[in-house]
């Protein structure tokens, strides 16, 4: 199952507006079709079977698989059953080969993700995004999020930035009109996360859930005058790890308001800032039974509507500045200034937890094992109340189903960080400079995200099944050996910039190797077997380039200059369904023993 990920932003993204992204999603994300190819396909189209839909654009934005290649359907003509294909998450835009009549194809059900880029703040006078009309299930759903590196969560100063709406820190969605919604959705299972939402004009709402069930709203910063979240109906809606602020005198609405059944409200910080007089209701969910756990609620004389209008919440490990709420682990009479960094909006609101607060280590292990910015819970002896987990040290250990997040700032010298994790964990190491040795190992279903900036010493990765490796994205300056070994269902994402030394990669079935997109100063060797894709350097390769492949492989050579020998002895060993794409620009060396083949083209020998 492949997630179709599309970018949204104003600098050359797939869509320039949120609503265009939504409108282009399939009407039914769960739809599949498996049959035989019709007559007349090309390298950029596939003709579906005669029983396929006669409705134009019916299969748009689904992926289609033919001959172990998966592409995205860009358009579809119902009369001819012809689907035009395009790039799927970085794949080639065309087939390698041409689908023949009676070949098998599969139109896949896909989760659909919109990744926002912080090219500029997303603004509008009224609603920014209405999500409606899509059929989903619990595995094929819509997600709106920030692209990697684009969220306030990804900001290099995330641990020290004030936790409040600030579009310079990451993707921000803001509306300016009164009585409007930033996002409205009635589509089941929709997920909205890693975003900042603001609607501070009278009675504006950050997220209006107008229908559907199973939605998840997590790790967002939300500021509104009306509700930060309005739930019209539905069941089991998850509201977790959000900062929800209403800097308003409005007392008729609540931060979380609505109806439904069995909602889950965990680990949120829900605040009316102290520059406003405490009033109104924090959580007002009516005619339902639901859980509130590990929350901080300040500035509301009724933190949670406990009775009346059918309200029936179970509240635990939740702190307020009002009278303590009946339930396990709850704390009352808190002083907001002792609990969060800055509860006063006139002097710069900051919703991060404060050292020494009574909510520190006073939560329970419910919800996600990380906080609004991804910090592992617990960082101390227990979960903190609210959306922010206070980090006291760099030492992190974890067991199953945890996320380990190391310091996001500078590690100065001679420090060794050993992070050991087991199943279903995520290791997020340093996002800034790591000056000394780093080593970590992982096992099944883990993700290793090493430093995103300079790594000055040795690092090594060892991974097994279903792992993802993301290597540094900047300069490696000294002699370092990178040994990345992967087996089935893995993805290797090496350096995106300069690499000064030797590297080697190896991979087996169903893997993708994405080597350097820039400079390779030394030898590179890539080998692969069935159903692999190699994307070679797009710039200078100063030494030699050697590729060997078998069935269903494609090699994309440098798109710029190759200044030395190009050795291709293995080229003659190619079998069917292979394609070699040579340099698209200057090739100033010899290409020995070129094979004569209609499947070998695009080489220039000048």
């Amino acid at each position: 199952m492949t997630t179709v990920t599309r970018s949204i932003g104003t600098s050359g993204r797939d869509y320039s507006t949120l609503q265009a992204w939504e409108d282009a999603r399939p009407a039914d994300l769960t739809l599949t079709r498996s049959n035989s190819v019709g007559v007349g396909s090309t390298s950029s189209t596939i003709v579906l079977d005669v029983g396929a839909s006669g409705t134009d654009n019916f299969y748009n934005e689904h992926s289609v698989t033919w001959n172990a290649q998966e592409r995205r359907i860009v358009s579809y003509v119902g009369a001819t059953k012809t689907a035009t294909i395009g790039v799927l998450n970085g794949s080639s835009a065309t087939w390698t080969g041409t689908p023949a009549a009676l070949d098998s194809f599969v139109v896949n059900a896909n989760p659909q993700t919109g990744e926002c880029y912080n090219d500029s703040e997303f603004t509008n006078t009224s609603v920014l995004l209405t999500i409606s009309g899509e059929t989903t299930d619990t595995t094929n759903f819509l997600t709106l999020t920030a692209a990697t590196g684009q969220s306030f969560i990804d900001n290099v100063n995330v641990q020290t930035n004030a936790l409040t709406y600030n579009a310079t820190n990451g993707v921000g969605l803001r509306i300016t009109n009164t009585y409007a919604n930033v996002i409205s959705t009635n589509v089941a299972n929709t997920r909205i996360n890693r975003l900042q939402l603001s609607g501070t004009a009278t009675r504006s709402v950050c997220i209006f859930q107008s229908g559907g069930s199973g939605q998840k709203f997590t790790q967002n910063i939300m500021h509104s005058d009306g509700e930060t979240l309005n739930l019209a109906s539905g069941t089991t809606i998850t509201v977790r790890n959000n900062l929800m602020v209403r800097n308003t005198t409005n007392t008729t609405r609540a931060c979380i308001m609505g109806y439904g059944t069995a909602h889950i409200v965990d680990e949120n910080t829900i605040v009316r800032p102290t520059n406003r007089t405490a009033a109104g209701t924090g959580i007002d969910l009516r005619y339902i039974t639901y859980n509130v756990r590990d929350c901080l609620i300040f500035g509301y004389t009724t933190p949670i509507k406990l009775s009346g209008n059918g309200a029936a919440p179970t509240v635990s490990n939740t702190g307020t500045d009002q009278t303590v709420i009946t339930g396990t682990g709850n704390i009352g009479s808190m002083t907001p200034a002792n609990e969060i960094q800055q509860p006063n909006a006139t002097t710069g609101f900051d919703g991060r937890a404060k050292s020494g607060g009574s909510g520190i280590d006073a939560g329970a292990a419910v919800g996600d094992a990380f906080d609004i910015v991804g910090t592992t819970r617990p960082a101390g002896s227990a979960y903190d109340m609210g959306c922010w987990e206070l980090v006291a040290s760099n030492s992190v250990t974890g067991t199953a189903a945890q996320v380990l997040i190391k310091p996001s700032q500078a590690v100065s010298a001679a420090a060794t960080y050993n992070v050991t994790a087991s199943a279903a964990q995520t290791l997020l190491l340093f996002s800034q400079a790591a000056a000394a040795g780093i080593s970590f190992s992982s096992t099944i279903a883990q993700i290793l995200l090493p430093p995103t900036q300079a790594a000055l010493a040795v690092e090594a990765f060892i991974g097994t099944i279903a792992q993802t490796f993301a290597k540094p994205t900047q300069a490696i300056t000294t002699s370092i050996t990178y040994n990345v070994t992967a087996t089935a269902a893995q993805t290797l994402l090496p350096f995106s910039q300069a690499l000064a030394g030797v590297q080697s990669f190896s991979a087996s079935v169903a893997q993708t190797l994405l080597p350097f997109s820039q400079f390779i100063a030394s030898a590179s060797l890539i080998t692969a077997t069935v159903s692999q894709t190699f994307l070679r350097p797009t710039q200078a390769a100063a030494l030699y380039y050697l590729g060997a492949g078998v069935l269903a492989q494609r090699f994309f050579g440098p798109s710029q200059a190759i200044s030395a020998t190009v050795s291709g002895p293995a080229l003659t060993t190619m079998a069917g369904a292979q394609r070699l794409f040579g340099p698209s620009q200057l090739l100033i060396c010899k290409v020995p023993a070129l094979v004569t083949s209609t499947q070998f083209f695009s080489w220039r020998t000048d």
Partner: protein
Amino acid sequence: MCELLIRTQDKAALDTPDAQASVSQRGDVITIQSDGWKWSEAELRSPFWTILKMPGVDATSVSAFVQPEPGDPKLNPYLRRRMFKLDLDALGHKADPATRLDLKASFDLTTTLAQKVQRPSVADPDVIGAAEAGIVG
């Protein structure tokens, strides 16, 4: 001072009340952006959209095109995603499922608003008689 991204083909079959209410349809305005907006390649080329340029027209003058049918979704789950549509045929845009057809001219506010069509409410199948003409409520 605005440009409108408009749906030129129904997004899905409209044979259910859900689809009629919630899926974008021919003539629906998807989004309104300012003059000179840098549309993406998909927005410029996809066959199911077109762009209407209205130079000098303030976006608020046409904001009704992106408003949903008013009402409470708790009481009526079939409120339309867009209350109004543009009559593209009247603006010279023919329906062609396979090819991107762009409007050949920019339009002023008067011309555009003359082709503003209110969609009828979707009948709630759970309400007996709601689909009958002359039934109020």
